């Protein structure tokens, strides 16, 4: 006992950086690098044929990764317990940005989800992930062990504001990820079982009503319902799903080889370098490549859950569990839609899909988990 105590004391005195988890950083970096290769594979031909720089998207993605790493490191520097105080500020800033994007944003494929800042686009919805996690974790930590119905409603109201704004864009995919995160944090924060059941039922009913009552735009319903019958409606909304399934299925065990996928080279899968990046992995690197990617994500999830378990305080644990839920939801939804078991909702694959906001936020989330983990003794 004494040994442990002295050990603990000595660790408190050390710099928290000595307690970082290398296994947490490896997979995101590998995935990021693999993502660059896949972005190149899916874009260089079309760029070449237009006499543009074949590295155009890759270069921009590299910039995003560098910024993401900086954000990760930056987030690690600030003690996460101080972030708890700052989180409310970030929350309001995010809500403001979400309001602004509806007024001033750029309409891309029917969704008003991003700002153009110079040559880069910013998606406030992505940043909402981080701040909502922090705010919700902070609120739940304060009222831990006494999550009454009223508190639960308050917590849900906090979430409802940014999620509602995101729904207005509309960006269903991000909302789904946020829902997973919210549900997980509430569960871990001790919400009562019957409240959680009611929550699930309400969520389900809401989804049904939304579809029936036309809250969702037709394209969203099409996407959501088309995955069930891709064969019948391949020309329209099921086209993405069908083409991505073909690409992945054609890859086989070991894939067609890098840059040798006909679905990829032929641009048959729309949005391939962004939401459907996994189809490039599936076609060119096969089951082996896909399994490696999923394995790397599994390691991230494993290390994140470990960080939650070892966290020094409930706030840190809730943050980690929130991030974990988001990663799981995002990977499941993204790979699920690429392989045809989930509806097409337009959601990026963390660390790999082309898109600055997603890359930066994904690395920032790793920074948050690392932050909690390395300060488990202090």
């Amino acid at each position: 006992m004494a040994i442990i105590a002295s050990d603990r004391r000595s660790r408190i005195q050390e710099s928290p950086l000595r307690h970082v988890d290398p296994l947490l950083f490896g997979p995101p970096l590998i995935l990021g690098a693999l993502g660059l290769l896949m972005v190149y594979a899916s874009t260089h031909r079309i760029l070449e044929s237009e006499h543009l720089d074949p590295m155009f998207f890759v270069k921009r993605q590299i910039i995003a990764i560098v910024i993401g790493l900086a954000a990760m490191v930056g987030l690690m520097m600030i003690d996460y317990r101080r972030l708890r105080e700052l989180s409310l500020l970030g929350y309001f800033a995010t809500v403001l940005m979400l309001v602004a994007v509806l007024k001033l944003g750029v309409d891309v494929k029917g969704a008003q989800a991003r700002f153009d800042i110079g040559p880069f686009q910013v998606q406030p919805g992505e940043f909402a992930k981080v701040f909502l996690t922090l705010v919700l974790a902070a609120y739940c930590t304060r009222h831990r062990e006494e999550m009454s119905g009223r508190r639960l409603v308050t917590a849900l109201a906090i979430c409802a504001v940014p999620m509602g704004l995101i729904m207005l864009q509309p960006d269903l995919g991000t909302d789904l990820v946020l829902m997973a995160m919210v549900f997980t944090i509430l569960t871990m924060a001790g919400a009562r079982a019957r409240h959680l059941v009611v929550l699930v039922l309400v969520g389900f009913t809401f989804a049904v009503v939304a579809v029936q009552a036309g809250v969702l735009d037709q394209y969203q319903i099409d996407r959501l319902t088309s995955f069930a019958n891709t064969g019948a409606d391949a020309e329209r909304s099921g086209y993405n799903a069908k083409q991505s399934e073909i690409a992945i299925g054609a890859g086989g065990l070991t894939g067609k080889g890098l840059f040798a996928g006909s679905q990829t080279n032929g641009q048959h899968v729309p949005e391939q370098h962004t939401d459907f990046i996994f189809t490039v992995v599936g076609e060119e690197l096969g089951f082996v490549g896909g399994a490696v990617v999923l394995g790397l994500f599994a390691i991230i999830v494993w290390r994140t859950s470990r960080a939650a378990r070892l966290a020094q305080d409930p706030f840190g644990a809730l943050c980690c569990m929130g991030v974990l839920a988001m990663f799981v939801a995002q990977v499941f939804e993204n790979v699920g839609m690429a392989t045809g078991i989930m509806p097409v909702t337009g959601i990026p694959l963390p660390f790999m899909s082309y898109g600055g906001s997603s890359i930066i936020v994904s690395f920032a989330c790793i920074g948050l988990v690392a932050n909690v983990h390395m300060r488990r003794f202090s």
Partner: protein
Amino acid sequence: MSTPRIRASVISVIALALFGALFARLWYLQVATTSEFEAAAARNSVQEIIDPAPRGRILDVKGRVLVDNRMANVLTVDRTITDRQQREVLRKLSVRLDRSPKQLKARLDDPRNSPYTPVRIADNLTYEQLQYVAEHRTEFPGVRAATVPVRQYVNGSTAFHVLGYLGEINEAELKAQVDPHAYQLGDKIGKSGVELTYESDLRGRPGVTRVEVDATGRVVRRLDKRPARAGHDVRLTVDLDVQQVTEAALKQGLDAARKVKDPASKDKFRLLNAPAGAAIVLDTTDGSVVSLASEPDFNANEFVNGIRQSTWEWLGDPRNNLPLVDRAVSGMYAPASTFKLVTAIAGLRAGVVDPTTTIVDNARYAYPTDPDHPFKGEGANGKVDLPRALAVSSDVYFYRIGGELFARQKRGDPTGTALQDTARELGFGAATGIALPTESVGRVPDAAWKQAIHDKNPAAFPYPEWLPGDNILSSIGQGDMLVTPVQMASAYMTLADGGTRYSPRLADAVFRAGVDAGNAKDLAAKKVRDLAPIKLGTVDIPQRDALMAGFTGVVENPKGTATAAFAGFPPGLAAGKTGTAQVQGKQNTSWFVGMTPAAQPRYIVLVVVEEGGYGAQTAAPISRAIMEQLNGLPVGAVTNVSPPAGN
């Protein structure tokens, strides 16, 4: 599920389950069912570009080109240019080509065009038009000048019914193809004549380039290429010189007939209609078709760029005598006296007559059991033996044979069906196998046939029984007997060569593309295959000399039916048989089957003219003109020999 630890475990299990589901799905797609998706990916991205093969030429027996491919100047437009460019290009082209932009646009958007190859938008351009476009290339983005092979029938309508024509492949023809690359919608395919029967030789094999394309149809890379193989050249047995004379003589004969009175009509001003006819020259040594003509004919070049709708309708209107019908092989006519060859052989084989059997022809024959209903002959010929009966075309002589055979048939004597048996042995009632489509089989009526049509329609055919009159009329080629000209020519060929039956042969060899027909070495080197004469069997022809004497008498005996038509023709050079068939509701069909030279005939020269009156009157002079050419004699003008000398 109250402690955070348990809740964390539940969430971990859910996460694990979700990852497990993704692994399972990935395994299912990529390992369990991958082949299905591989195929789908290939369908998605692999496109075939078809490069048509130049079609083979058709040569005459001496190697002269009858059907060739002319190089035509055309303009093609690349369909991948932008809509705005396209509008501009079509507007400018319409000015240069004197065609409306609408017409050009319609051709460009024709769905039969492959989206991966430039579309032919204008054919048969002048050199100046082509030059203008070439010099102003920047004004015409996506437009290319090209030369493409276009089918050319060198001698216009000559040998139209032998050569045939091409047309666009239809749905049924496309479906019938085994090789999916062989034809594309919009391709030309032989529709008639040799163009149809030797399609597989002439066609060649189109080249196929497989390319990988992207979702917008742009070519990403070339996968592989199978080069096109040009179609083979087919050499016919037809001799262009004989063909031309045959056609000219037939046309002249028809013209001449239309100017004379119908001898069978009581109306003095009723002229012969002579709307159509056919002529065939066969080489008796191997069954080769030396010429084959059918009137009216048509110029196949009109089909080359797609036939005009109005012309197509005109061709299908019976009032224009259906020029596309090849009467030489598909026309069915009562053979009349030309059929006496068959009756004579049947009578000899059954022992009803021998060459010396003599009767008195008083133009009247009655079957013994029915003396009150005699059959009339065309004039009394007095005492006739078999050769003379042929020469003067004594109906009575052959009625007797038909009558006697019927009596035997009634008695159950197996020789009683000699007439029908001999007819079938000589090829009547069956296709000759000539390499032309639409060959008719004709009809050799007999007891079984009569019973069958009665059973089918008792109201129209009340008598199921084979009656004496049926056999008697058959013996002079009337009644229900129907033959095609090519069958009749083949039957006389069998007589002429002493009993060997050949299938009329239209082509003798197939060569690789571009053979130099005048160069024996090249011919040998490029020969793909010989088309050997097709022997169908032999027929026992008793008393051939007596028969030939009779057929020579037709043109040489002072009483011969065609002696007048052959007046002045060198003796010993011709033999033949006239025929004048009565047709319900029409003027008589005029037949003449010529053989030359008479002693050992080398050629059969058959002529048949619909509504041409007597055989000696219209068909014989046409046959004579052709025989003159075959024998190197000066070819005289074809006239109509009237008044008729007989039937």
